[in-house]
């Protein structure tokens, strides 16, 4: 309750502030100001095809450009909604197997060199180069190559005519400078100087990175799309959550990416800081290993039976847990997808919360309560370890809640909290009973073929629970090959229902994160896949600027 009030008051504050902004626009330039973002983890590789951490992606998205940019509705079929970026315009070949992109002649790399069609050719070849080992290789599988028609026209060729061909090249591939990278062996790129000092074409240019401490971007004043409004963005790495929040409250930082509900409660009545909720494409679930961890060829002794999985799903009060963890700011999972995904559907049938039914189901399957109240069958207790990465406070909280709820049903849950690398190692080796996991999709449901399709079920694939159902595979394939968005969506929803009925997981919540932000900062629309997509359009009105906003773009003193 108080949070929605808080949000409402924050929203009205924003409206007020927006009004004052229009007044000030006449008196001063919107350009200028420094945004300080307190973030818990450092960046890794500042090269788009290798960027893995969130901060690296945030930085790469500011420094580099795509050929065209996806619309805020995240439509992935054809080129609907896409707006020009490095490419001013594009022409489809009659057979839809190639697209000619016309590069903006004004576009310049941050070192002053013009952007050429050969950069596109180089970039596509690099993304597909197995020696680079880019995690995006599967996403660009349908792209064959790019060729140079003239210095400003690049033609991208596709293997097959697919609905998401344009999305594949425009969303997944950020264009890189050939003249700076061609002399570096692809396998050395990860540790190259360039990956720590990237040069791109974005409206922010990279300034400096002190590993473990801070990373700075500054406006590219000569940019072909106009300079970023902010002078600079500084990311400060603050591992302790309390410290980061204190930095925000004391004005040392302007934006804090992840707050707890308790911290949000402290914002009440604070005129300088407001909640900053932003959507994402991550969804969290409790996944059941469908195979015996010791003998992968055999079904799991407990979770091999879909009825047990459904009983556990019915025993969990998903709404209560959501309320406990996120207060009123949570987003219940509607099914195996984040709600921001275009194909998300709110009407999927999921096992209802019904402990009586769950108990009866377990009784009927022979899992009877013993003298101590805990269930067993043929001398085997109904007990399992739930693996959770300790780095996720939310998932650790969920684990504790699930443990107590299942105990009441007579199921013993041991919480296996572990550091992420260990968690990952167990997932890879399929060495777990159940785990609290979060998958992140991109705007296309294509990622589902890897995460839930039979193709990813083998060891070393991304489908760690080992789910395999040919009906699901076929429906998903139909969705990905439909050129009509409505039909594609209908197939995807049917595929999700098949997945939900098989219950290889309990769908818990959408990772809908709430940060907190200084009211000085006037944001642009937040895109569901990346809140920072329009960061170059954010402003700090002149009247609200403080010392650090006024230092301008002059070079720092040595």
């Amino acid at each position, binding site marked *: 309750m108080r949070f929605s009030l808080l949000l409402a008051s924050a929203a009205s504050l924003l409206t007020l502030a927006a009004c004052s902004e229009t007044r000030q626009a006449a008196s001063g330039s919107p350009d200028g100001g420094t945004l300080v973002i307190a973030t818990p983890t450092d960046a890794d590789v500042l090269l788009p095809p290798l960027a893995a*951490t969130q901060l690296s992606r945030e930085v790469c998205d500011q420094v580099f450009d795509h050929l065209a940019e996806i619309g805020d509705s995240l439509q992935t079929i054809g080129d609907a909604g896409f707006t020009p970026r490095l490419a001013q315009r594009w022409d489809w070949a009659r057979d839809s197997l190639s697209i000619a992109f016309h590069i903006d002649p004004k576009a310049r790399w941050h070192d002053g060199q013009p952007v050429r069609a050969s950069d596109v050719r180089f970039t596509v070849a690099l993304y597909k180069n197995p020696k680079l080992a880019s*995690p995006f290789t599967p996403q660009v599988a349908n792209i064959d190559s790019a060729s140079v028609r003239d210095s400003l026209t690049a033609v991208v060729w596709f293997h097959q005519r697919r609905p998401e061909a344009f999305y594949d090249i425009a969303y997944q591939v950020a264009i890189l400078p050939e003249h700076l990278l061609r002399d570096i062996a692809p396998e050395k790129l990860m540790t190259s100087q360039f*990956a720590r000092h990237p040069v791109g074409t974005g409206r922010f240019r990279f300034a400096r990175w002190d590993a473990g401490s801070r990373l700075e971007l500054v406006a590219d004043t000569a940019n072909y799309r106009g300079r970023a409004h902010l002078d600079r963005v*500084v990311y400060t790495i603050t591992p302790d959550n*309390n410290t980061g929040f204190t*930095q925000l409250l004391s004005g040392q930082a302007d934006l804090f990416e992840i707050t707890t509900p308790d911290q949000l409660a402290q914002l009440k009545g604070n005129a300088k800081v407001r909640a900053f909720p932003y959507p994402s494409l991550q969804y969290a679930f409790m996944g059941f290993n469908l195979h015996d961890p010791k003998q992968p060829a055999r079904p799991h002794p407990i979770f091999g039976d879909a009825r047990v999985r459904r009983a556990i799903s019915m025993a969990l009060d998903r709404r209560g847990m959501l309320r406990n963890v996120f207060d009123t700011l949570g987003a219940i999972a509607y099914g195996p997808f984040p709600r921001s995904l275009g194909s998300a559907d709110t009407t999927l049938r999921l096992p209802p919360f019904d402990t009586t039914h769950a108990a009866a189901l377990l009784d009927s399957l022979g899992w009877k309560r013993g003298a101590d109240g805990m269930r067993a069958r043929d001398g085997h207790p109904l007990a399992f370890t739930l693996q959770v990465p300790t780095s996720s406070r939310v998932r650790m909280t969920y684990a504790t809640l699930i443990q107590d709820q299942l105990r009441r049903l007579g199921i013993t849950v041991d919480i296996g909290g572990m550091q992420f690398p260990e968690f990952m*190692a167990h997932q890879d080796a399929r060495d777990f009973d159940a785990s609290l996991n979060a998958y992140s999709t*991109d705007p296309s449901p294509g990622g589902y073929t890897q995460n839930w399709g039979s193709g990813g079920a083998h060891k070393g694939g991304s489908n760690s629970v080992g789910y395999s159902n040919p009906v699901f595979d076929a429906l998903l394939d139909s969705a990905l090959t439909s050129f009509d968005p409505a039909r594609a969506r209908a197939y995807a929803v049917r595929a999700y229902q098949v997945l939900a009925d098989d219950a290889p997981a309990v769908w818990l919540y959408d990772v809908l994160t709430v940060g907190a932000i200084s009211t000085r900062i006037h944001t642009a629309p937040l895109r569901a896949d990346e809140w920072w997509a329009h960061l170059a359009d954010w402003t700090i009105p002149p009247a609200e600027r403080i010392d650090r906003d006024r230092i301008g773009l002059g070079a720092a003193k040595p």
Partner: protein
Amino acid sequence: MARRLLARLGQAAVVLWVVLSAVFLLIHAAPGDPFSFDAPNISPAIRAQWRAAFGYDRPLGEQYVRYLSSALHGDLGYSHSMHEPVRDALAAALPRTLLLMGVALALSFALGVWLALVEVRYAGTWRARLTHRVALFFYSLPDFWLALVMLMAFAYWLPLFPAGGIVDPVLHDYMSPGRALLDLLRHLVLPALTLTLLSAAAILRYQRSELLEVLPMDFVRTARAKGLDEHTVLRRHVLRNALLPVITLLGLAFPALLGGALFVEKVFAWPGMGYLAASAIDARDYPLVLASVVVGSCMVIIGNLAADVLYRLADPRLRRQ
């Protein structure tokens, strides 16, 4: 003396090698590796390819020999959690920790010795009892609590000092040298004060018993008999003799502070050695874990060695050996 020092250095080299090998085994035996970090989109196959590119899929013996030989040639490897060569990461973090610990060490010795004098001088009065109780209280506090309380108190409720970091992330580069130094000091106050309060209590307790040991000795009685007032006796005769063993403590306390610095650095986002070591362990960053543990051990060994040398120089009874 020189031969003794050489022998000690030789021992130290052996100790470091043992520590290095043990940590090497320990970290490789643990589950996970530098490429099993949290990034849901990266498939296991790609991770395996990266692993192979850096040789982390080779047999353990081969990795060990290769690490040792390149380390002996001055190449400490590439850190995947800091994304720079290990040497650069150490070069950035070590001075920060030395600054924090150096300041805390100096302050806590000054404070500890002074309070010990107060407690001995005013023995039996409320002043001594209060000092004793307060010191005991700080001595009993977990250091991350004190760090959190200091942060809440002086950066949040009473925002006198910045909440973490080493310098202002934006303005520092634009300040005059004087202002820049002031900025650094402002950021240093809370973490250094936290460490100081925690260790001063320990030093007080130690110094106090040293003072009490010297007090009944003959020369003190002589000094008193000469008619010197109690204050002068304490300062000139008792303290000078009682400070000698504190040198020992100096050598021990410096590396020992590293453990406390680890918590304080985390709370105050102070990217020094403790922070580096903890994040390296979390990320299974093999070369960085090895390097930071070895640096930590080096600090202990150097601390002991320095105490040994200083002690011999300061105590005439041992100088002749």
